[in-house]
């Protein structure tokens, strides 16, 4: 026993095993279950084990699937663009314009304050603001900018994307800020010494060196938006759909096999998106 423990190989396996067990039980096993159930059959009131492709056939045969997937991609893409622009700007400001560490930490904590409350609360707090008689509309009317309340402010794609951007920008800020802080400040001076303008320094030095952070943030945002269902339901007033809602509706109707099939397709889609992102940037050196 003593000799067994002393062997470097055995010790390595033992040290790795707790995490391996946790991942196997709580990640691999559930996914395997979902994949298995996606081949099962269902009636109006029961599900039964089987190995059939009915669920997938129905999924790929329905035009609803394609429009819902397209809508999901649309949300992900627009949210990605806004979170990237806002996140990069905030991170840039924190990393390069705020010189004292104390202020950097203080402002960074300020960014995280909204996260002290739950997602749902942050989400629904937009409703009284954006509603027909909400703060935004009444303010605009009292300023004389508009005569009629704007209908598209709430329960629209606008409100869904606004909420997504609000919820997920920090997931972009953190990795980008982290990468930017590792950029040696003398590189910026060296670029300046070589005659680069501020904009040239940004495009030739800062953005290339921040790519891994941008990529990690993008993966966070894209996966979070693509897997979301509650934001779309609340903020669109159940008028828009994405894949998450498709799955949650199936579950509400106890159509587990159909929900599982949709989940598998969504998982594969997200994995493909991430694989494509990773083709562009090697994030391994960042981890």
């Amino acid at each position: 026993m003593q000799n067994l423990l002393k062997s470097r190989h055995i010790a390595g396996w033992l040290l790795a095993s707790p995490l391996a067990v946790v991942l196997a039980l709580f990640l691999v096993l559930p996914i395997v279950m979902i994949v298995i159930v996606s081949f099962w059959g269902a009636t109006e009131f029961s599900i039964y084990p089987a190995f059939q492709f009915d669920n997938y056939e129905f999924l790929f045969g329905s035009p609803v699937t394609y429009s819902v997937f397209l809508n999901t991609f649309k949300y992900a893409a627009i949210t990605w663009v806004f979170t990237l622009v806002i996140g990069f700007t905030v991170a840039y400001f924190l990393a390069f314009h705020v010189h004292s560490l104390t202020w950097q930490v203080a402002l960074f904590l300020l960014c995280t304050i909204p996260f002290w409350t739950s997602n749902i609360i942050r989400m629904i707090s937009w409703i009284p603001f954006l509603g027909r008689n909400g703060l935004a509309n009444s303010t605009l009317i009292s300023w004389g900018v508009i005569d009629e309340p704007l209908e598209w402010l709430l329960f629209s794609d606008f409100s869904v994307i606004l909420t997504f951007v609000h919820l997920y920008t920090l997931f972009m800020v953190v990795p980008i800020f982290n990468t930017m802080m590792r950029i040696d400040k003398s590189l910026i001076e060296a670029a300046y010494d070589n005659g680069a303008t501020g904009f040239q320094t940004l495009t030739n030095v800062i953005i290339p060196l921040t790519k891994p952070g941008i990529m990690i943030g993008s993966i966070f945002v894209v996966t979070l938006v693509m897997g979301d269902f509650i934001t779309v339901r609340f903020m669109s007033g159940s008028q828009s759909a994405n894949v998450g809602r498709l799955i949650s509706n199936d579950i509400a109707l106890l159509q587990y096999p159909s929900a599982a099939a949709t989940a598998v397709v969504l998982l594969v889609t997200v994995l493909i998106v991430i694989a494509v992102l990773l083709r562009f940037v090697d994030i391994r050196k960042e981890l």
Partner: protein
Amino acid sequence: MSTPPDLELVSLTKRYGSTVAVDAINHHFHAGVYACLLGPSGCGKSSTLRMIAGHESVSDGSVVLGGADVSHLPPAKRGTAMMFQNYALFPHLSVTDNVAFSLKMKGVDTATRRKRALEMLELVDMTAQAERLPAQLSGGQQQRVALARALITQPQVLLLDEPLSALDPFLRIRMRSELKKLQRELGITFVHVTHGQDEALALADEIVVMNNAVIEQAGPAREVFNAPRTDFVARFMGGHNVVALPQGRVAIRSDRIGLTEPAQGRLDGRIVTIEYQGTAVTLNLRATGDQDIAALIPEEEFFANPLTEGATVGLTWDDAAMHPLRA
């Protein structure tokens, strides 16, 4: 420009809040000189260099290059180029792209800038590594790339911020001879910041010793070493004793002190320790008035008439070896 320009500092001052990092220094660097700014850390030498480069704003006074005040021009418009302490090579660009960076910023086309970059790499003997990334280079190679990147802008003054401090001692000596050779070939002014007096003596035509935000002494290397004018310079350059005599404080080189019988010399001293150094022997003495004096005696002379620790000897030197120090 046909004749390379002189670089002048005119009561150049740098203040950070209430602290003065550089206090109204004046100096004239002649064109084509290899100058070393020498001093302990925090003496203001780096701030001075960064003000010349344009990476630090000038609080007062001016930097004059070739008769024109460049104090408020951006770095790239001054005719200076800086080599950074850690070289500051762009980690995502190949050696060639690093060297060609300033040309790319000017909008020079790819073929021309690659050609020019390869010419510069040839100058520093780095053509074989042209396609590598900085992380794949050794410290000495990175330094050559940094040099090439600075020189491709055709500067009139090259500013080097402790360029050798990141290298191991062996490489440091090799790179410093290469720096000197390159400066001779190019004929441009080098201003090199260092805290190592041996480095400054080995490289510089002119040494500017700084301490507490001011220039203590400036002049040709031999003059600064042989005739220090202040206590600080004498101690910092090393190899000197600062001795208090009735006529005032003087600096005397350790190797100019001779031994004689007690009471026969100018001072008496008791030997505290004896260190054999190979070519010479260092005697650390406690002289009259509790002064510590080091005497460097040639090896043969010492062993022809060996002394022991605790012995009392007389110390003697020529009048010419005494350099009176400013109070």
